[in-house]
């Protein structure tokens, strides 16, 4: 047999399916429900899957279609089970200049679903632009523009845009300024 059984392959792909589900729902319980629904749908449709084609893209497509059709069905409840909505960004970037993961997550949650999925597929799951476009049922250019807008929005939310960088707030700048002042004092 030249191709592995897609049922076995599915099991190997579960961790990344869960991670993708989490990036869409942002709530662990909802993510697990979504993965379960995806597994059930995939299992009953394996006869439609063409062996040798991209199983990962096929599964991710089922997952996102399930997510968006659920979202359409119910007006999104404003639930805050995991405290996602109450989390606030810090006023300033982390002192070491690196992004604090917590702040990043808060900013990431503020993106649109479409921006989050495009960023996660290409930026974290290793999908090519073409694979991401296939998975999301849109043009490659659409994926690229969602990624660019998502990155720009993240940079803005994390105070990483150029104007913010001009502010005299980062440690290196403060060190230069205070050294200058001390020298002339």
């Amino acid at each position: 047999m030249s191709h592995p059984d897609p049922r076995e392959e599915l099991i190997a792909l579960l961790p990344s399916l869960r991670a993708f589900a989490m990036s869409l729902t942002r709530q662990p319980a909802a993510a697990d429900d979504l993965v379960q629904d995806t597994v059930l749908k995939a299992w009953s449709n394996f006869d439609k899957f063409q062996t040798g084609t991209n199983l990962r893209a096929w599964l991710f497509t089922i997952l996102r279609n399930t997510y968006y059709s659920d979202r359409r069905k119910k007006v999104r409840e404003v639930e805050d089970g995991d405290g996602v909505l109450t989390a606030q960004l810090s006023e300033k970037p982390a002192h070491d200049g690196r992004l604090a993961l917590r702040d990043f997550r808060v900013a990431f949650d503020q993106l649109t679903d479409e921006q989050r999925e495009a960023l996660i597929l290409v930026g974290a799951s290793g999908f090519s632009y073409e694979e991401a476009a296939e998975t999301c049922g849109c043009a490659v250019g659409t994926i690229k523009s969602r990624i660019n807008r998502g990155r720009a929005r993240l940079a803005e939310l994390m105070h990483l845009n150029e104007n913010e960088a001009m502010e005299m707030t980062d440690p290196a700048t403060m060190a230069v300024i205070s050294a200058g002042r001390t020298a002339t004092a």
Partner: protein
Amino acid sequence: MGDVLFRAAKKILHEDEMASSKPDKDAVQKQIDENLKRIFEETANQPIPDQLSQLLQQLREQETRK
């Protein structure tokens, strides 16, 4: 005097900023991608929940009974 130095420092920093705005943009992008990977892997590295393993077990059993 302090003010003059302060303005001079600000001007130098501003010029540095302008000259290096392209690498800065790449650095920002790199940081964003690193964090995207971190949040993705945080979930991807977790063990599969029991409920999901049990569901798969059931599905496989059904399959073999067919």
